[in-house]
């Protein structure tokens, strides 16, 4: 087995550009084996705030239309209060839509349309003799500012949705009743990983570099990775090389467990899952919750090292597998040939 030298994760071979990181907010954190998180939530947070604002304003408009008319400098006759109430209904509907909808972008644009309507109504009010022009002007200024905020948020939401991937971060731990050297050694030989990581078809290692082949709903997804840090019996960290369609990195730490209980193994895995069909495929491979997949992997890892085999039942003949949990075979022997 090749001895792996310590690699500074921030050091780049001469002439190689830094790998392009997906767009998103938040400063990248560069621990060994970690990827920067994409913050796709800035626009969504704003949208939620504006949603509550809409509801609050709408309720006020419904409940005290006359007072609000006077506040913005319009005469509070029957026509005006009715109009104010209708606007209130519109605000509440927009607010509820923003808060409740999975896709707030169209509701945001609806708000912008509402703002435009408000601005034109106020513009008309300016021409009215009974209006207090100073107040109407101030109201227009406020609405104008809110309109700008709405437009910015709507645009951000739109961009976010188009480029939205997600960062996947999983942490799981398991204790294996074998000595640290044995557990570290088993993981260190990456070619062992498919024995318990069922989403992997094969891993071939060549010194610090390795080639990974993962099963996909159709065909395979392949990438190259390198070992970023290797502290014998303590830590292995690896990272996909530039060009991987799904950037991923992982680190596993090993620590003696108390008394005679063996080794504590802690796995952290990160992946930047792209939007679009590739992301959907990765989601399928890992099931709804990637930590469940990794949890099953570690369960099998423990079984292989402690019990010598992956345990199989008639209900779950492939051994522990997240997808089987909801789709058990009946607990009877498999037919011949299965």
């Amino acid at each position, binding site marked *: 087995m090749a001895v792996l030298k310590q690699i500074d994760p921030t050091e780049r071979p001469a002439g190689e550009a830094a790998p392009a990181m997906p767009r998103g907010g938040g400063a990248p954190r560069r621990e060994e084996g970690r990827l920067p998180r994409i913050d796709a939530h800035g626009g969504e947070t704003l949208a939620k705030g504006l949603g509550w604002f809409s509801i609050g304003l709408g309720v006020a408009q419904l409940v005290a239309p006359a007072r609000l008319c006077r506040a913005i400098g319009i005469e509070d006759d029957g026509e005006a209060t009715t109009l104010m109430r209708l606007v209130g209904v519109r605000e509440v509907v927009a607010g509820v839509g923003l808060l409740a909808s999975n896709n707030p972008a169209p509701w945001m644009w609806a708000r912008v349309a509402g703002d435009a309507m408000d601005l034109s109504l106020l513009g008309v009010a300016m021409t009215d003799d009974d209006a207090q022009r100073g107040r109407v002007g101030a109201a227009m200024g406020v609405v104008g500012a809110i309109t700008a905020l709405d437009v910015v948020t709507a645009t951000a939401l739109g961009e976010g949705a188009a480029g939205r991937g997600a960062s996947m971060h999983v942490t799981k731990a398991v204790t294996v009743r074998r000595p640290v050297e044995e557990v570290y050694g088993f993981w260190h030989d990456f070619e062992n990983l498919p024995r318990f990581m069922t989403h992997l078809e094969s891993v071939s290692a060549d010194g610090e570099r390795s080639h990974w082949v993962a099963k996909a709903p159709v065909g395979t997804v392949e990438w190259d990775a390198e070992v970023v840090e290797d502290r014998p019996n303590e830590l292995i960290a690896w990272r996909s090389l530039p060009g991987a369609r799904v950037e991923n990195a992982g680190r596993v730490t090993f620590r003696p467990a108390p008394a005679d209980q063996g080794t504590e193994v802690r796995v952290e895995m990160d992946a930047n899952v792209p939007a679009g069909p590739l992301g959907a495929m990765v989601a399928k491979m890992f099931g709804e919750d990637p930590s469940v997949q990794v949890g099953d992997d570690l369960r099998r890892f423990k079984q292989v090292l402690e019990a010598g085999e992956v345990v199989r039942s008639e209900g*779950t003949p492939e051994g522990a597998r997240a997808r089987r949990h909801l789709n058990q075979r*009946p607990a009877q022997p498999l037919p011949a040939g299965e």
Partner: protein
Amino acid sequence: MKATTWQGRNKVEVEEVPDPRILNGRDAVVRVTSTAICGSDLHLYDGYIPTMKKGDILGHEFMGEVVEVGRDAGDLKVGDRVVVPFPIACGHCTPCTRGLTACCENSNPNARLAEKMYGHALCGIFGYSHLTGGYAGGQAEYVRVPFADVGPVRIEAGVPDEKVLFLSDILPTGYMGAEMCDIQRGDVVAVWGAGPVGQFAAASAFMLGAERVIVIDRFPYRLAMAAEHSGAETLNYEQVDVPDALKEMTGGRGPDKCIDAVGMEAHHSSTAMYAYDRVKQAARLETERPFALREAIQSCRSGGIVSVIGVYGGFVDKFPMGAVLNRGLTIRAGQCHVHRYMAPLLERIYAGDIDPTFVITHRMRLSDAPTSYEIFKHKQDDCVKCVLTP
């Protein structure tokens, strides 16, 4: 092969299913010569245990002859006559090495299913829902036995099946119930439940040095069996108020140790109490009817031990935690770690200290399983334990 399969609430059918075969190196296949229906099988029959699928083969009390071995099945050989313990244990995880085989961390491929509900994985069990792995059970002609180098215990020739069959579950379970009581000289032990497990718990309590054992149930024939075969005193809870009677029988002290060998489908003579829990259980708002447990806690002498071996599956309403805390009670519970009791109890059987056959009241063929379940469930014909032969 023929096997008893679960087909829904109150319905089992003996069906033709595929024969089992070796799937893993540590497997063996056993041809079943005797098998039995357990009281906990009735919880499956009554539909209280979730994750059952139509077609699941039931049964976790079985013994027979090894007909096939995997390459890593230890020194087990084809032709060996074995009794198989009901928990499936790998033998190498920390709980297994500490003798807690019913806490095995590796034997349940559906560990994740149980984890959400119970906090951690449950160990694998033969024929007891997919929560415990979805293993095919032993009320069949053949069974695949995983980790066969760890589980099955060899039986010498010349000993009838009936004498040793109950090493698979109920005898060690009753024994562990009594052992958990940490019985001291002079102890009075009260046992709720005079079913087979309660019978063995009472017998074991005497074996472990109890001064007196009082068995509580509502079926006179079962109480009579406990009195005759173990020398226990008896109480019928439909005729007396049990906590009062226990105090009276023990000079006002109450029993020193209490064993709950009833579990989640208890009955109760107080109509109101029963109605409350029964209705909630029927509406699936409560998963258990914990009368025996509550009564055991109420009755137990302060500073005593309540040992729970009756099966529970979920959550219990109105648990008398105040009594537990304020009177310093210890509650010990568990599925039986059968593996560690089999050899010692087998020696006891060989030595004639106990003859477990006294609980057997019915002997039927495997094909009569549906009838057996009904007789056993409704305690017809003075049924205590039913043994089936394929």
